[in-house]
């Protein structure tokens, strides 16, 4: 399946608005049945990219192929794709049923066929049947998500696009909907292309993730690859809180950290590495009783601690910078604030990235 022809192919895709280059030379293949997520901060061009794929925006340069057919000029209403918008864009003057059946009505299907399919889809997205005649304005946030999803599925599109549909939803419901969305991806077998600014959300759902920065796709990989081998500082910091130290390649294979005047043991260096950053995740950082317990260590003092439920996070001040250490609750640090502490890590738990 991995080597089959891609369902969606972008070749040097570029979009300019006046002098602003929103999407810059993006090339990407998306496979049939894949859950692909594009992650980036706001303004990184991910929404523009998705709008081009959906036919709501025309590329300035480059090509889009849908199953080997060039679709640059094909408008949204003639593409076998469907989008779930950030605002959901439900038709507020219509009922739940009328919203879901909109695409079928546009195709001229009979009222009976529409109703049958509409009710079946409501079942798929777990909306109760008596919602059929309810106005969408009377639905809750989660119910509106389900209506939008059912509406997008109604035309049986080849690809479903999602433009951050969960960004305005509270945490617990979002977690629930993430899981449901991933399950829906399994049951329908359709290709999902999802965009979000939350890498955490992307990790939960995606087969592959693409990271966007300033209009460019800077890294593509599985959630594990992105997590374990971020390509640059931007990607590593996008993952959430990490500890970064500016370092240079030193003699005898180690790395020098000018800020602490220390030499650390080095993880595998990227080709031609001269200077960059050493990244250590909070959960890889440990409290030490003695410097010999880890390959590298730093002296600091415990500045503050935060309970995160199953985990506890510590901020340790060392050499004028703040380091983050995270432990499971059962392995919490036994001591008080302002204690002098030793923190350390092993080279295998750190990553070297360039700027």
């Amino acid at each position, binding site marked *: 399946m991995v080597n089959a022809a891609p369902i969606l192919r972008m070749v040097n895709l570029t979009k300019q608005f006046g002098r602003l280059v929103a999407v810059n030379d993006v090339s990407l293949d998306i496979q049939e049945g894949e859950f692909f997520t594009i992650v980036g901060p706001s303004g990184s061009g991910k929404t523009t990219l998705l709008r081009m794929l*959906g*036919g*709501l925006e025309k590329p300035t340069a480059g090509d889009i192929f849908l199953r080997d057919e060039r679709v640059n000029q094909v*408008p*949204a*209403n003639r593409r076998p*794709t*469907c*989008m779930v*918008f*950030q*605002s959901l*864009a*439900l*038709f*507020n*003057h*219509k009922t739940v049923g009328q919203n879901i059946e*909109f*695409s079928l*009505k*546009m*195709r001229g299907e009979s*009222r009976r066929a529409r109703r049958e399919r509409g009710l079946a889809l409501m079942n798929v997205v777990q909306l109760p049947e008596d919602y059929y005649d309810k106005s969408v304005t009377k639905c809750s946030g989660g119910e509106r998500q389900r209506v939008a999803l059912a*509406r*997008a599925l*109604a*035309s049986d599109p080849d690809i479903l696009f999602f433009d951050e549909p969960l960004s305005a939803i509270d945490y617990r419901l979002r977690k629930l909907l993430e899981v449901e969305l991933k399950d829906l991806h399994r049951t329908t077998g359709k290709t999902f292309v999802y965009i979000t600014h939350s890498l955490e959300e992307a990790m939960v759902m995606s087969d592959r993730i693409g990271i966007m920065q300033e209009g460019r796709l800077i890294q593509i990989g599985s959630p594990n690859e992105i997590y374990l081998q971020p390509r640059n500082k931007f990607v590593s910091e996008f993952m959430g809180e990490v500890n970064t130290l500016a370092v240079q390649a030193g003699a005898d294979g180690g790395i020098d950290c000018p800020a602490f005047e220390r030499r650390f043991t080095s993880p595998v260096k990227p080709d031609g590495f001269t200077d960059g950053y050493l990244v250590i995740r909070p959960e890889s950082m440990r409290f030490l009783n003695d410097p010999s317990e880890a390959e590298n260590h730093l002296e600091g003092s415990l500045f503050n601690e935060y309970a995160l439920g199953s985990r506890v996070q510590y901020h340790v001040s060392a050499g004028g910078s703040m380091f983050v250490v995270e432990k499971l609750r059962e392995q919490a640090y036994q001591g008080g604030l302002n204690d002098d502490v030793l923190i350390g890590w092993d080279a295998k738990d750190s990553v070297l990235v360039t700027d």
Partner: protein
Amino acid sequence: MENKRWVISLIAVWTGAIALFLYIPIFSVITSSFGKSRYFRFPVKAWSDKWYDQTLGANLTTDLHLTSFYVAGCVALIAVVLGFFGALAFARYNWRGRQFYQRLIMLPIFFPQAVLGLALLLWFTFVGVLPSWEAAVFAHLVWIVPIVTLVISIQVYGFDAAQEEAAYDLGANRWQAFREVTLPALAPGLFSGALFAFLLSWGNFPLSTFTTGADSTVTEWLYTKMGSGYTPMIPTMGALSVFGAIVILFGGYMFLIVQRRRRLERNE
């Protein structure tokens, strides 16, 4: 709790007093139209419906109301069409010169109506349009279209343009998206726009007086009569005109409701 009840009753009394103060004049016009006296009096001492007999019996009454109705009806219809597209340009699309347009469109509202009426009369004469109720329609439109545009714009501002995109994305062409999504979503704004247009035109005097020529609307007649010789037909005509407007608007509203019912039933 005790305290709260006090405050609520105080608010109720205050509100009642304000309403009384504002509505007594209107109420007194209506009561005096049912009075026997030849003069405008309040409270009414002796009751009679003879002024209604006289007013309703006169051909004049029908003519005046028909003229007012033609003018207000045409104004409402044209103003809603112009105002709708004007509002889309005002609030929906971003284009070069939109800010200038937004200011330009407000201009007639700030202009004193009497001066505007005179200016329009001079302009009509210059281009060779004879003053008549049709000319008055144009005069009213100059002042009312901007207002209707603003009223509809409020609805357009609240419209999520992504709904149109969603319609395209779900297979609708431009016309289908307009008919299925944009128009129904903006319908409440169009309705209030039409309501405003009708009422503003129905009650307008300064523009009508300069531009209707030989035709006369209800308000014009009322004003002229008050100047040239009071008769109790004035409050009677005023009351009739209010009833007329209520009947027309309420009738129109009922018509829309029945239509919607029918459409919903057909969808069942």
